[in-house]
């Protein structure tokens, strides 16, 4: 039998939260042992659309944009994911090539778990299967809502809705305002909303004039959430 240097088991967000959180301690230790954790810098790619899928990525810290190429020069941002989330799961059982790409939008750490191990674990641990189904279901609902918003809402309403989502997921309360702890370029925001950069810039400026938000550098601060909800034409 081959003797291998004993590995240290690390506990991170991907084991304590997310799809592995309901596993028994022994199974969690296995996940910790077989995962590979790395630090990534902003702009580094985790996986690329069209490349073979080899496993699952669990985000420990940092934020990642999941994109699909719209043309050779343009990309559509499908979603932004953060700590506790998993990506690369869509093709884990089908063995298809990656249907999208994942790129760090800020520095962070990500764990990788290879497909062979994860498929074996799925067969042994029903909680992972159920959590994956829940995750896929939530993503499908979000995708359907976004598709409907593209047809039924104007750009300003969609942008306001995006800012509400950012407030819910990344909002940090500060005195009389909420800091959105996510830094996206105007181009990236335009890609999510489905419009041109100039339009995003114009509506951000309008929101500032209406006293809904203010900016310091690239950071956006929400000042009046009620007005933003009215602009989004949603009931929250």
């Amino acid at each position, binding site marked *: *039998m*081959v*003797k*291998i*240097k004993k*590995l*240290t088991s690390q506990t991170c967000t991907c084991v304590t939260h997310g799809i592995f959180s309901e596993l028994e301690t022994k199974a969690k230790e296995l996940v910790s*042992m*077989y*995962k*590979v*954790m*790395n*630090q*990534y810098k902003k702009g*580094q*790619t985790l996986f*690329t659309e*069209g*490349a*073979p899928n*080899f*496993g699952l990525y669990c985000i420990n810290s940092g934020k990642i944009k999941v994109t699909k190429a719209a043309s050779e020069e343009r990309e559509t941002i499908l979603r932004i994911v953060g700590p506790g989330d998993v990506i690369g799961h869509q093709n884990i059982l089908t063995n298809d090539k990656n249907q999208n790409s994942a790129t760090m939008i800020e520095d962070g750490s990500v764990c*990788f778990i*290879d*497909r*062979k*191990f994860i498929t*074996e674990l799925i067969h042994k641990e029903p909680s992972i299967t159920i959590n994956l189904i829940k995750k896929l279901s939530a993503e499908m609902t979000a995708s359907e809502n976004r598709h409907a918003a593209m047809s039924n809402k104007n750009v300003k309403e969609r942008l306001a809705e995006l800012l509400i989502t950012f407030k819910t997921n990344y909002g940090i309360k500060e005195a009389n305002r909420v800091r959105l702890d996510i830094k996206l370029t105007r181009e990236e925001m335009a890609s999510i909303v489905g419009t041109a950069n100039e339009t995003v810039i114009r509506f951000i400026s309008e929101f500032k004039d209406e006293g809904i938000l203010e900016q310091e550098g690239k950071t956006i601060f929400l000042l009046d959430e009620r007005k933003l909800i009215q602009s989004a034409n949603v009931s929250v």
Partner: protein
Amino acid sequence: MKKPLIEISATQLENLKKNHEVLSFDMDMDLVYEKQIPFAGLVLLRGEIEFTKRYKIQGTTTSSCVLGLNEVMNELPVQHGFKVKKDSEVILLGKSELLNTTDEHSAIFPLIKKFLKA
């Protein structure tokens, strides 16, 4: 530059091909970034992979070699980034498979044995 690889024989390559899926990677794809732990041992069957350090090319390797085996098994960061220079065919040996290989008849056992001797 000391290349971070283990060279393997044609017989070993054939054995690996029989038991593993061959994956294709396009030119310019980053397989492993510098100072990261590889997510798998990479067996290069066809194509070319370049080693980079601080975004500068330090060398390249063509077929019949394994990259990153020591690093993935011992959770060590690679000193060079691995980037696909020409469209390549690769077999990936995942960490779970490498750590679970105790069967002396398996296709990757000789590689692990070779790595342990190195």
